[in-house]
């Protein structure tokens, strides 16, 4: 019945053709798509097509109580949820003038770095898989799972922790937690040379990723690139150091950079950040037992909580880059406006569209994974 309706598809006269790349594609991170125009396998033009993960977070948050939103925020970036929670909590704390107890601040830093390690392991696992190397993916994801185990022990949830609430955190550390975390760090540190051997210095990967999706320092600044992707162009810029929040000002850590600006450099920055995060976590483990005190300052009854009118712009360095929340309150029980600035909203749209031009079709996946673009942050 249908074939009689078929019409011959008019092919364009040249080798140029258009292709829908994603959303159902293994080379796409998450649920995201590109429309690309190709000549052969050379990308002439790429156009991001988002919105597959759009849930209208910003609208939803306007309809919920301040505290109810703590359950909503981690969902904005699934692989790296903690910065979302912390950033939202920081914004409300700024609006309400809440003093977060020091212990809670250290616990937050600990989670942020754990989350960063987990997200980086996941990112390089994903990148490895698109390169056709499945062992690093298996390793990365299995080791990430060990961090999720520690998260589960601390927060009661594997992926969505819903652990940071305005004013502090919801639970104190379980008995002997830092010891187990320390053990995990030892293990992860012992794995780093394995990752290097298997992936980061593996010539299969190095040659595949080198000079793919290269951007210069000037381009990166112009395009609003942040985080590891910016540092991969040689700029040592990091919100943790430039705009310190929590107790990052009192921690000692390097901001690793690479000069290449390509997919390889971005991965190597992440690899170095793994090391730095472990270093930070060790400092937290050393200091945290000395800091006693509450883990949360008193907050009002959630059902009767009006946040004073005002606005706050809080920034946090997530594993993808600069994450920011702009929260406006008119003094009501619900936010008036929450704007989430996900780092990937730059990386996955404009940067990717530009980097893809001139590359080959199969490089799009490489570029996307090396940028560690997280579509839910874009779609929100």
């Amino acid at each position, binding site marked *: 019945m249908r074939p009689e309706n078929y019409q011959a598809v008019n092919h364009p006269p040249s080798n140029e053709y258009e292709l829908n790349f994603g959303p159902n594609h293994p080379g796409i991170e998450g649920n995201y798509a590109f429309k690309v125009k190709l000549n052969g396998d050379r990308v002439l033009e790429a156009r*991001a*097509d*988002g*919105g597959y993960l*759009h849930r*209208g977070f*910003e*609208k*939803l948050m306007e*309809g919920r*109580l301040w505290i109810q939103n703590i359950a909503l925020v981690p969902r904005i970036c699934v692989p790296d949820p903690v910065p979302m929670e912390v950033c939202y909590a920081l914004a409300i704390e700024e609006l309400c003038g809440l003093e977060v107890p020091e212990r809670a601040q250290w616990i937050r830093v600990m989670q942020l770095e754990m989350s960063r390690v987990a997200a980086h392991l996941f990112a390089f696992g994903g990148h490895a898989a698109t390169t056709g190397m499945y062992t690093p993916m298996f390793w990365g994801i299995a080791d990430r799972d060990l961090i999720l185990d520690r998260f589960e022990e601390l927060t009661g949830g594997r992926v969505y922790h819903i652990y940071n609430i305005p004013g502090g955190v919801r639970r104190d550390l379980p008995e002997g937690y830092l010891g187990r975390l320390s053990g995990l760090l030892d293990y992860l540190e012992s794995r780093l040379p394995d990752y290097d051997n298997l992936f980061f210095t593996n010539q299969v990967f190095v040659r595949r990723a080198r000079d793919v999706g290269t951007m210069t320092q000037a381009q990166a*600044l*112009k*395009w*609003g690139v*942040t985080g590891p992707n910016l540092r991969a162009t040689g*700029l040592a*810029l990091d919100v943790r150091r*430039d*705009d310190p929040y929590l107790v990052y000002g009192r921690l000692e850590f390097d901001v690793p950079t690479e000069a290449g600006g390509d997919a390889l450099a971005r991965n190597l920055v992440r690899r170095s950040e793994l090391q730095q995060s472990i270093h930070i976590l060790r400092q937290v483990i050393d200091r945290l037992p000395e800091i006693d005190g509450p883990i949360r300052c008193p907050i009002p009854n959630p*059902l009767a909580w009006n946040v004073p009118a005002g*606005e706050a*712009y809080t*920034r946090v360095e997530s594993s993808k880059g*600069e994450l*920011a929340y*702009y929260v*406006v309150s008119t003094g009501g029980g619900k936010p*008036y*406006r929450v*704007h989430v*600035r996900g780092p990937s*909203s*730059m990386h996955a*749209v*404009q940067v990717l569209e530009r980097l893809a031009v001139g590359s080959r079709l199969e490089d799009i996946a490489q570029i996307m994974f090396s940028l560690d673009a997280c579509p839910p942050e*874009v*779609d929100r």
Partner: protein
Amino acid sequence: MDKNLNVWLDNLLQEIEGIKFRRKSTRRVRIDVAMDALPTLLELLQGRASYVHLSAITCVDWPDDGEFELVYHVWSYETQSLVSAHTRIPRDPGVYLSIYDLYEPAAFFERDIHEMFGVFFEGSPDMEKFILTEWDGPPPMRKEFDSEAFVNQQFEWQPYHPDWLKELEEEGGGVTTRPEDIRW
């Protein structure tokens, strides 16, 4: 850092009229500026004061005032401070100038605001739909769009009627308060 910033801001105040300036903390500055003066302000911020990174553009809807508030958050890597430039534009017709020439990341945010609020930015490279390509309703982030009412009208919910509930209903019990009855 602070000193330089103050000197610079003094100069700035002389150049633009009708500017209100408030330092919220050491790294956060709020500037309120009229809608005509905003591009000039941003140009100065970028050109003379190293605010090269556009962190975000936020649109806030104030239907009671009949205005959209646009907030441009720009960050300086050198002075390590953030300036939030607030301006208000009339809600109707909701048209403003793009700052794409100054800050390229603006393209994404302007496109996003166009989709979500219906504000058109003249000179923006791309005002096509991105996220809401399959949405033909009103711009959803506007305050007058009631998402919950829309959802209740558009969708049906899973009708649960488990056995235990049937038993309770036979005994005279049953559902007393549905969640939608006491939306908080």
